């Protein structure tokens, strides 16, 4: 110790306390007597801990402990009681992230919506009309049909002036708006938007059930969010099915491609970190040095949007070294059995050479039997064509029974190499639209010149073989010919040598481990206009190396949350299928494209992005024309369907015949043909569990301007376009967002800690419960109670104004139904297709009663899911005992669904994953269809009831609802049933597809995997890129560390841990080019709107690209913009909808519509913006 004097002081001078100290009195030790610390003990104490979770658009599905003291939610920590995933792998505990851990802040936060609110001007007008003696419906009609009054309340949207109203008045206005709309315009002018059922199944289902029972349309979200990888329906015939995160552990080679796992999959990132210790190699492909890059063995810093080029070059290496130079038996066997590579494709002559055309089918061989046009053909070893089992022609036909399987009776030829050859032209787009001319080996089959998909793949990828004609790369180092490693280098900036080495490592690992190579794909690669081509290039790597359907291998697409594990039960409740079928469902992207008038701002020819080798069918057309054609062709539903009220059509004696005649004779038109006709406007929109206008609304300012008639930052609004289409925007939320700010009526919602519900995810195999830690405080209500209150008032008014009606509903041919064989050959119909129609009787006075009970169609028609039908007779009876029966009205004797908990019980009882009896039924049907014993997949005794999920997360079981196997001793990986049990994929060939032969795929030049660069937005929109004082940069909106999914950007805790408001990340180079220092205010402007934010300058950002992280809403710290003088916008104020026509293909095998399965994506990554420094003096008012 220092000095004696000090020592003395220390000994005597712990001035106020005598305690045992260290021998040298430097350190004070103390035992016991710690009354002074009681504060912390007291603070730690609590009255109860309640299990719950967070319920919207988060793949986490983490179970949480919510602490309650004196009736107050104090905080939350993660549950750690997940069932074990095995003795030799890390467990799931704990699961959670900082966003989830900060959620309880909302419960008592000043942004909480505590009471019902409505716009003051609207309320005044409504009350005035009511005081004038009008009934609610008439009052609503008077206000909304008077142009002056309509304009007054519409233009006030988003400008404050909300006033508190009571629930009775709120529900009355809402009910009146619905009744008026249904009566005057038609039920399909009512829409509901609520995403991601998986995360709070009942909260989603209850609103969707209301909308569906009244004949309104639910809008899809997965495609609209651009989270849907369209490549999945294209290649797999499946919406999306992915491994649980514990299966990352099984991978020996893991590529994180456009996925920032630590940020966006926080609860699961540990599997990635830990699997490295098991010797997994990790490669990160990302434009920036991302959070994930830290974990990588290699980081490939790729130019944004060029990922497809790198993948194509890797595919080139794989095909050359592992299929041509040598063969790997594992790979060859795999691709023959599970992919379309051996299937024969007809070549079509074009300008003296050939182009690939259609799959050769049994019909082409002269077979006129049922399904012949849907039976694809391969070449047997003897050179004779063979029609193998498993294609779509065996799926729905009587004669196909027992033959829809993957058994190959012959060893098919992969290539026809060794005989004749032909020259084919194949499109390329890397340097504008062009073509390459290459040779393929061919055979003559009857009148058809055919080759295999494999041979076409080699031609497409530029893998030369001796003796074939055409222009081929001279080697890996040939930069001129696609798709060599040297070709991709200037595009991606990834060195050619690294591309080669990593491709080899992927394949060698896959060969050694029989498929344990996995790619985790993220929104960085999905959400491009051509994201489907990027994905197909990735999937090709996995399919060629035999990784799909193998634990530890395959794609792992975690963008959005597709996995509502108890699917059949949810679908039943959400669609109201137990009372009436079919429900109306509309793909979101084209709906918004039309109704927000974004289509008017598309000023380029739809043919501009087409293949030079296509027939030119899109030339001279507008994308909106293609939307209308897709609707007319019966490919895709649209709301409204017709320019007339479908209830009016239902008044005809034979509504179906009448409607068809009216259509044929031109008196009735598809509404999509004239979206701006007031008869075709959407009139009522309800948004819950979502912040549409502050988050996902691509083309945000168009929404505000045209759909709502509110103020906007649109630089050049189209004066000819209508404004203010919606009569009522209703939102239910527990916090204030752009959506609530612009809503006419806002209902105060319970938070996730105040209700019962169910949660599941693709990331883990469990289902678990929400439970109320407290009752909904103030005047808040659960979504369940809110919709039931609306339904009750609606039913009263509707009984009087609407009564019982017949509703004419368009039936779109759907995937996983016989409808998917509606249009053989994948050809666009010559003219409008008269659609299939259904007449649905709607007893509008009975809607509330039906909401609250399980209807008889559940057992009468069964529960359809993925092509099988569960028959829940015993389950319905059980639910009657468990939930009780309705005692009066038209629903008498039906099982009750009048509480959230009972609805949860019904979802679990009616789903195969939670009810082994139903799973067994489904597998029995599949066994009959496939001729394969599948009984080992399910156990009739497996059953999960709601209280199980309240006690602890519960492992689900295998079910035909999903493509993979669930068991205690293995992790979930998709398509393991297909690979291990020979069940076909739900595609045309029954195998995974490299080749897509629909007319429109050829038109777009995407029949085969191909590289398509990001859109040249400046060229498409005729911009010259000259800006004063600013620079043009690529504008990306990745998911934020501080606000994704379970959390929103307004949370004070998250804001305190970040920059406290909207930010734009930029490189040092870009910042210095415009004189911006860290934390300076900047403005980003383009033809769509304005974003005002502060700059974060970091050298981990690449030059030329800025990040404005997702869902930065206008509500927190957004000043007025210099450009417009108005409040700056949200991250999606700079983006807009651009529809890729190929996403609208329908009625053709896996390219058939299903809700959230196939539809145009609301992609937004191709956008650019001008960014510049602005005055540092900011004003908020």
């Amino acid at each position, binding site marked *: 110790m220092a000095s004696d004097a000090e020592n003395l002081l220390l000994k005597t*001078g*712990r001035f*106020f*306390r005598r305690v045992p100290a260290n021998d040298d009195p430097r350190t*004070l*030790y*103390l*035992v016991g007597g710690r*009354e*002074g610390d*009681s*504060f*912390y*003990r*007291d*603070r730690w104490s609590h009255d109860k801990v309640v299990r719950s979770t967070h319920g919207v658009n988060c793949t986490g599905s983490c179970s949480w402990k919510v602490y309650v003291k*004196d009736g*107050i939610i104090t*905080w939350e920590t993660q549950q750690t009681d997940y069932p074990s995933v095995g003795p030799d*792998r*890390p*467990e799931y505990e704990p*699961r959670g992230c*900082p966003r989830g*851990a900060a959620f309880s802040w909302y419960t*008592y936060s000043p*942004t909480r919506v505590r009471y019902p609110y409505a716009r003051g001007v609207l309320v005044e007008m409504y009350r005035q009309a009511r005081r004038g003696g009008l009934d609610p419906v008439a009052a609503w009609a008077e206000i909304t049909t008077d142009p002056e009054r309509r304009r007054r309340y519409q233009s006030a949207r*988003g*400008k404050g*002036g*909300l006033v508190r109203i009571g629930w009775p008045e709120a529900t009355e206005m809402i009910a009146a708006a619905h009744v008026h709309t249904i009566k005057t315009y038609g039920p399909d002018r009512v829409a509901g938007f609520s995403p991601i059922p998986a995360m709070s199944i009942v909260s989603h289902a209850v609103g969707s059930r209301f909308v569906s029972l009244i004949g309104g349309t639910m809008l899809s979200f997965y495609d609209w969010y651009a989270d849907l990888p369209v490549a999945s329906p294209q290649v797999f015939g499946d919406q999306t099915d992915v491994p649980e995160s514990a299966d990352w552990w099984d991978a020996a080679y893991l590529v994180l491609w456009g996925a920032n796992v630590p940020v966006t999959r926080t*609860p699961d990132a540990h599997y990635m970190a830990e699997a490295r*210790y*098991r*010797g997994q*190699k990790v490669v*990160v492909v990302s434009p920036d*040095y991302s959070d994930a890059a*830290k*974990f990588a*063995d290699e*980081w490939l810093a790729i130019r944004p949007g060029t990922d497809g080029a790198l993948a194509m070059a890797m595919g080139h290496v794989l095909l050359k070294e592992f299929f041509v130079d040598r063969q790997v038996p594992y790979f060859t066997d795999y691709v023959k059995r599970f992919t379309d590579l051996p299937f024969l494709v007809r070549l079509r002559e074009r300008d003296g050479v050939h182009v690939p055309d259609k799959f050769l089918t049994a019909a082409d061989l002269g077979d006129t039997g049922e399904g012949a046009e849907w039976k694809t053909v391969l070449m047997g070893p003897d050179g004779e064509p063979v029609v193998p089992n498993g294609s779509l022609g065996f799926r729905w036909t009587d004669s196909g029974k027992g033959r829809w399987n993957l058994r190959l009776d012959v060893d098919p030829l992969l290539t026809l190499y060794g005989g004749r050859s032909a020259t084919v032209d194949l499109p390329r787009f890397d340097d504008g639209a062009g073509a390459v001319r290459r040779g393929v080996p061919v055979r003559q089959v009857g009148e058809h010149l055919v080759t295999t998909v494999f041979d076409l793949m080699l031609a497409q990828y530029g893998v030369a073989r001796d003796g074939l004609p055409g222009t081929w790369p001279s080697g890996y180092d040939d930069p001129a010919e696609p798709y060599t490693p040297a070709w991709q280098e200037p595009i991606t900036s990834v060195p050619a040598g*690294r591309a080669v080495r990593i491709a080899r490592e992927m394949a060698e690992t896959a060969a*050694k*481990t029989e498929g344990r190579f996995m790619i985790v794909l993220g929104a960085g690669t999905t959400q491009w206009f051509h994201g489907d081509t990027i994905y197909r290039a990735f999937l090709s790597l996995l399919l060629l190396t035999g990784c799909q359907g193998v634990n530890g291998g395959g794609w792992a697409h975690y963008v959005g949350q597709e996995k509502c594990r108890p699917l059949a039960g949810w679908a039943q409740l959400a669609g109201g299928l137990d009372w009436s079928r079919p429900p109306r469902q509309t793909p979101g992207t084209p709906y918004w494209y039309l109704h927000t008038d974004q289509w008017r701002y598309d000023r380029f020819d739809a043919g501009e992005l087409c293949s030079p080798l296509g027939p030119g069918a899109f030339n001279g057309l507008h994308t909106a024309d293609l939307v209308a054609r897709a609707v007319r062709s019966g490919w895709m539903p649209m709301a409204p369907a017709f320019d007339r009220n479908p209830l009016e059509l239902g008044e005809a004696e034979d509504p179906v015949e009448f409607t068809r005649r009216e259509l044929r004779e031109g008196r009735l038109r598809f509404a999509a043909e004239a979206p701006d006709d007031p008869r075709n406007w959407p009139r009522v929109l309800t948004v819950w569990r979502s912040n549409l206008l502050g988050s996902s609304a691509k083309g945000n300012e168009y929404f505000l301007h045209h759909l709502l008639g509110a*103020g906007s930052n649109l630089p050049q609004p189209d004066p000819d376009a209508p404004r203010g289409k919606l009569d009522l925007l209703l939102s239910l939320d527990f916090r*204030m967002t752009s959506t609530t700010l612009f809503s006419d009526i806002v209902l105060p919602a319970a938070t996730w800690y105040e209700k019962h519900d169910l949660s599941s995810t693709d990331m883990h195999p469990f289902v678990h419960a929400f439970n109320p830690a407290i009752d909904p*405080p103030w005047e808040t209500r659960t979504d369940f109670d809110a919709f039931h209150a609306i339904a009750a008032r609606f039913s009263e008014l509707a009984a009087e104004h609407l009564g019982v009606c017949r509703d004419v509903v368009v039936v779109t041919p759907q995937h996983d139904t016989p409808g998917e064989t509606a249009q053989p050959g994948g050809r666009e119909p010559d003219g409008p297709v008269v659609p299939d129609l259904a007449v649905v009787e709607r007893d509008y006075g009975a809607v509330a009663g039906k909401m609250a009970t399980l209807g008889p169609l559940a057992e009468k028609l069964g529960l359809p899911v993925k092509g099988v039908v569960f028959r829940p007779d015993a389950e319905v009876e059980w639910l009657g005992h468990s939930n009780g029966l309705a005692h009066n009205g038209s629903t008498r004797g039906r099982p009750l669904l009048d509480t959230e908990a009972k609805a949860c019980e019904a979802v679990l009882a009616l789903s195969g994953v939670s009810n082994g009896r139903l799973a067994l039924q489904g597998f029995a049907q599949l066994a009959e269809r496939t001729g394969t014993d599948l009984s080992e997949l399910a156990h009739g005794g497996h059953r999960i009831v709601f209280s199980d999920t309240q006690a602890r997360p519960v492992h689900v079981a295998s079910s035909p609802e999903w493509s993979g196997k669930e068991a205690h001793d293995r992790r979930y990986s998709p398509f393991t049933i297909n690979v291990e049990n020979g069940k076909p994929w739900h595609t045309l060939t029954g195998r995974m597809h490299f080749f897509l032969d629909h007319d429109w795929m050829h038109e777009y030049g995407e029949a085969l995997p191909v590289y398509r660069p990001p859109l040249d937005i400046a060229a498409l929109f005729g911009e010259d890129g000259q800006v004063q004082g600013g620079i043009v940069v690529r504008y990306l909106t990745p998911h934020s560390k501080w606000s994704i999914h379970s959390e929103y950007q*307004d949370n*004070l*805790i998250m*804001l305190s*841990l970040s920059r406290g408001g909207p930010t734009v990340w930029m490189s040092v180079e870009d910042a210095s080019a415009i004189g911006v220092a*860290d934390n300076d205010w900047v403005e980003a402007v383009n033809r769509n709107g304005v974003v005002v934010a502060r700059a974060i*300058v970091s*050298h*981990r950002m690449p030059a030329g690209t800025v990040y404005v992280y997702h869902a930065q809403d206008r509500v*927190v710290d957004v000043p007025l913009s210099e450009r417009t003088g*108005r409040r700056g916008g949200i991250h999606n104020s700079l983006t807009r909808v651009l529809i890729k026509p190929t996403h609208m293909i329908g009625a053709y095998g896996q390219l058939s519509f299903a809700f959230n399965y196939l539809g145009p994506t609301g992609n937004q990554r191709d956008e650019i913006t001008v960014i510049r420094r602005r005055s540092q003096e900011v004003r908020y*008012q």
Partner: protein
Amino acid sequence: MTRVMAQIAMVMNLDKCIGCHTCSVTCKQAWTNRSGVEYVWFNNVETRPGLGYPRRYQDQEKWKGGWELDRKGRLTLKSGGRLRRLLSIFANPIMPSIQDYYEPWTYDYENLTSAPLSADTPVAPPRSLISNEPMAVRWSANWDDDLGGGPALASRDPVVERIGDRVRLDFENAFMFYLPRICEHCINPACVAACPSGAMYKRSEDGIVLVDQDRCRGWRMCVTGCPYKKVYFNHKTGKAEKCTFCYPRVEVGLPTVCSETCVGRLRYLGVILYDADRVTEAASVPDDRDLYEAQLSLFLDPRDPEVAEAAARSGIPDDWMAAARRSPVHDLIMKYRIALPLHPEYRTMPMVWYVPPLSPVVDALAGSGHDGEDAGNLFGAIETLRIPVEYLAELFTAGDPAPVTASLRRLAAMRAHMRRINLGEEPDPSIGARAGLTGDDIDGMYRLLALARYDERYVIPTAYAAQPGSVEEIGCSLDYDGGPGMTGPFGEASGQPVPVAIETFHSLKQRQTSEDVTHERVNLLNWDGKGVPKGMFPEKEDR
């Protein structure tokens, strides 16, 4: 061997840290989301390179934290001798201002609901929680998150300043990693030594360093003394607060909140035995670079019969010895030698240790790169990792690269060894041998780092000989009130300290469930101590 002491220590494996900050949030929510400590994060996570929280806390030339050796080689507090500090006790101690942490703020959220009909969309602009005035956000609890430094900030990182041009701040060389920090619960705590009130102490039964809230007189010498700046000043109570190692949980065998909620699964808790009599000697070794080894030399092997005997003599219960033998922390520090102390040169003998992070190979971006998995490249690659070994060495070993390199080599060797097994190849014993590991070592390390379950990560004995604290609150002591010199950054001049009981859940309830959101927050900085400002105490409410 005379006196054996037992401590619950922590190891964090930075190689697994994903920088998610869940630990910070759950800690904040559980312990410091109350007024007076808005700016306080007992647990925070720093992106490195970066300035840290509070900014540049590692600059001890400025902040004078920790210990140093005087000219005679004796330990002395860097902030000066006790005498000098005692004489200047009423003067401002050297401590960070609120701006060095950050000025906490909120937003006018209520505008969103209450705005009248106006020209534009309502918005919630920021407002200071200190002054209650509108403010521009210029720094936060984690301002430089994910920057990898950033041009404006990284050059001021005290570690970067030390190693200079070894850190290149361009895109091709970008690197970053995360450093979660709590109180180090040091064996030789400078905060305890600095406290003139005797209010700070180290619990002898488990080594947790605490502030006695009754005894604390708010001198703030502890804030200065702590080189990690992990003692904070509650500007409402006028007392020091710090990470408690969640003792109400640890006492009953539950891990700390930050540990249990760590989704990276990178935290380990376990018992470490050390020789209490050799602490001074170890903390006084002349060369900073010897402090790591010196601290290791204090730690005792619980399997050693002599240690067990001495421990028994020192009153350490059997279950603590059993826990010590199963301690993951002991294994990571002593057996595998992959965990290292944070800034041993502060000489406080910290007890929260870190496994350093691996990172991608740096030259891979431009050239063909190394395959880090390839055993042939393995050890060469350590030198070319993006995260410079020098940077890590400045953090963990007072600049000595050897222990850092050794630790990284062991991690890398484990991966290379396991990769062969993963691919179905024969294990190659030479890989482990080159890093000083046997096959059994690798197996044990692998299980601990990759698989360890909840009860293997957190091995906490429950049978304390502790006396659970009485919940009765003791009134605040006289010495505090209105003492001279009580001016400073946090509004100490705001008069009577508020008993901690004011922060009961009843007041929380009143505040959180009240109908109205008010701007009438208490401005503790400017209050002259007269009267009771509105909002200071909860309003009585008729219910």
